[in-house]
């Protein structure tokens, strides 16, 4: 049969990295083809070649059987190839609609813009995505999850025949994911070919028709999704057996309280939130997108001001107004948005890992101990399996998942008494995920108090000793961890809307 897109013998080298070694890939119309592989395996690179962003160093590409060499995103668009990038690349100062239709603004004579048509067209695209968003909202005011949805809308607006989705769900919650999958079904029915990249293994079973696996830049195999058990896929990705050791939940009810939060409030985002975490405990935070979990964490960390509330560390009230004060008080926070808040991407891996710990690496005169920094950086590169040619590589040049590992390394190194991880495993492959879980459990065992905010329910349930659930800025309940708590229990609390309780006005 004829392929929509076919790639053969694709080669790509970066300085110090052989990113793709004679890789092949094919896409049929109306199929979802999952592209799998560990962090840094070369998935994004292959797709950037397909969509005209990188030039290939070798190999061939065919669209509808005709050889093509898309040399720009525009050329790829003309071939009907659209891409949703792993890293957000929106214009933050513009509105959602202005982003979605950039370059294709409805115009009137003399280059005048028809803003009404622009907003109307965007509203239609949003409606088809079941996305409740005013096309006139400014992008920078939106959380990354919602920004991701704007990116998706933008890619769809081109009506592509081939749509590449590079980790579209990394920032999304179950409800949005379900919505996205409906869209994917519709596109499939229209004959659109979809390349789907994700580290959420469960999704593969749900939507993929075929699976291609890459390892270390090399092509491993292409399989039928329906006939292949997940464990096989994982084994092919990682190159070995991954054993999931069953979690043990220690009893920490008698441990001293490490962090106590009382009546934290900030506008409508955070309303009267109180909870505590004990030493040695992992407290999970679940909730739908926009539930206010990130906001609670940022307030505790002093990154945002609060209207009211008290924070106690080791039973002592602390006055935290800046992240610096928080770190001094022994609190660390790993942000959900690595690109904007987690990394200085133009700096090296080594410098980023050391960033929160400079006093460890300086003498009294302020002179840096590069040798010690290198030692530590190399240690974490090994431990977390960060794929990089050296610790002096600029973080910007790492794959998305490997960048995330760098942020994790930074905070693991900081060794705070209270550590708040916001979406720590976003974009991280299965193998590395279990390594990170083990590290978190290790930290807890050493007596640290750990808060994990995650939109992946399985992750919250796998890790948490207790699970706090938020909805619309309120803490709606704290559930015990372990097998006794089901997804349904959590979802019930996560959707316990105030309006629903009161039974009054209908929300969107």
């Amino acid at each position, binding site marked *: 049969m004829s392929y929509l897109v076919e790639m053969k013998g694709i080669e790509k080298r970066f300085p110090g990295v052989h990113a793709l070694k004679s890789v092949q890939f094919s896409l049929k119309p109306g199929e979802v083809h999952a592209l799998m592989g560990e962090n840094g395996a070369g998935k994004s690179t292959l797709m950037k070649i397909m969509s005209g962003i990188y030039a290939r160093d070798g190999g061939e590409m065919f669209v509808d059987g005709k050889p093509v060499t898309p040399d720009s995103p525009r050329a790829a668009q003309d071939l009907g190839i659209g891409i949703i990038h792993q890293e957000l690349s929106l214009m933050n*100062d513009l509105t959602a609609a202005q982003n979605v239709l950039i*370059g294709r603004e409805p115009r009137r004579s003399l280059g005048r813009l028809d803003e009404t048509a622009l907003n109307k067209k965007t509203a239609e695209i949003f409606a088809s995505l079941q996305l409740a968003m005013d096309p006139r909202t400014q992008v920078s005011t939106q959380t990354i999850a919602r920004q991701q949805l704007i990116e998706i809308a933008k890619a769809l607006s081109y009506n592509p025949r081939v749509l590449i989705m590079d980790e579209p769900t990394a920032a999304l919650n179950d409800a949005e994911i379900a919505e996205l999958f409906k869209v994917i079904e519709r596109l499939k029915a229209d004959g659109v070919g979809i390349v789907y990249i994700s580290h959420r293994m469960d999704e593969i079973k749900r939507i993929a028709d075929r699976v291609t696996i890459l390892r270390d830049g090399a092509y491993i195999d292409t399989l039928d999704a329906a006939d292949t058990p997940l464990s096989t896929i994982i084994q092919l990705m990682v190159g070995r057996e991954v054993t999931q050791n069953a979690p043990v939940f220690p009893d920490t009810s008698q441990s001293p309280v490490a962090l106590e939060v009382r009546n934290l409030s900030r506008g409508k985002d955070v309303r009267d939130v109180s909870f505590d975490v004990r030493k040695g405990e992992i407290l999970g935070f679940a909730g739908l997108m926009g539930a206010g979990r990130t906001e609670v964490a940022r307030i505790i960390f002093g990154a945002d001001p609060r209207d009211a509330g008290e924070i106690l560390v080791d039973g002592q009230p602390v006055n935290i107004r800046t992240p610096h004060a928080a770190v001094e008080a022994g609190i660390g926070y790993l942000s959900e948005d690595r690109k904007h808040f987690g990394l200085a991407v133009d700096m090296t891996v080594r410098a980023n890992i050391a960033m929160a710990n400079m006093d460890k690496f300086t003498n009294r005169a302020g002179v840096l101990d590069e040798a010690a920094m290198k030692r530590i950086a190399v240690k974490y590169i090994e431990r977390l399996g960060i794929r990089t040619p050296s610790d002096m590589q600029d973080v910007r040049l790492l794959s998305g998942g490997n960048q995330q590992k760098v942020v994790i390394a930074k905070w693991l190194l900081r060794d705070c008494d209270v550590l708040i991880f916001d979406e720590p495993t976003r974009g991280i492959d299965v193998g590395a995920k279990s390594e990170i879980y083990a590290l978190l459990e290790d930290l807890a065992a050493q007596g640290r108090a750990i808060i994990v905010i995650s939109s992946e329910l399985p992750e919250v349930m796998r890790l948490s000793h207790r699970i706090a659930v938020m909805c619309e800025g309120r803490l709606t309940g704290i559930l015990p961890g372990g097998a006794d708590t089901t997804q349904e229990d959590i979802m019930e609390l996560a959707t316990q809307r105030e309006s629903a309780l009161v039974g009054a006005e209908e929300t969107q």
Partner: protein
Amino acid sequence: MTSTTVDAPKSALSRIIATGTHQRVLAFASLIVLLIGFSIASPNFMQMSNMIAILQATSVNGVLAVAVTLVIITGGIDLSVGTMMTFCAVITGVVLTYAGMPLLLGVVAAIATGALAGSLSGTFVAKMKIPPFIATLGMMLILKGLSLVISGTRPIYFNDTPGFSEISRGSLIGNLIPALPIPNGVLILFMVAALTAYILNRTVLGRYCFALGSNEESVRLSGVNTDRWKIAIYALAGAIVGIAGLLIASRLNSAQPALGLGYELEAIAAVVIGGTSLSGGRGSILGSLIGALIMAVLTNGLRVLSVAQEWQTVVTGAIIILAVYADMMRRKKPN
């Protein structure tokens, strides 16, 4: 950044000028505080003739600020506006005085020269990937030298083109309403500002100004020909600088070839005081206009108060910092 709080119907004009930048209007506050302060301090300040003097003093810097706002919103900078203005004035002098062409051709020459020079800067930036600071610094020097070369280092007077000085000094409004002798130069400033604000907020060119300043790579990846648009934006800014050249030449009834250095800093200062960010993506023409007015009021007021010149400088510096600080605070509060 808080967006829409008010959604009441707005007048067409205010919508044109202020789209997405309601808070910018608040920058008026510093201006009004200054006006009130000086009025109290000196009875001579708040006279019609002095108000008109302030507006006229704003006209050239205001037009330059409008031009440079466009470039700054794209995330660039333009250091050449001062000497480019002079260059346009000199070319007009050559066309009108040396070649004896009719007035209209002189006007066209100024604007065309600006557009051409601007598109050259734009080409350096867009095609040759030279940082805007360097590209426009180079242009600043090149145009400065060329002005001197072309004019023979002598001012070119417009005595043979009687209507020329009316461009800035005449008063159409004053002819209609004798009590309001606002010079044409001021009228032109406001017209240029309104038109540029319209272009910025209502046309594709304006949209790409903001888009380029916000995330150039993303605009490029969306298939927009960013180079071409950037050149167009620099050319438009240049054309506006050409108008400033006309204004200053008409006001001085001569093209002064040595003038211009230092004007770029003042224009950029007006833009930044007006709340436009030097990192691009955000800004408004109204803000730049207010910024230019703040500077003109400050300078004039301190002079009318007869403050010793060395102290004028000190006070100007301090008030600029304070005005921007007040603006910061005001914008922060609603968050």
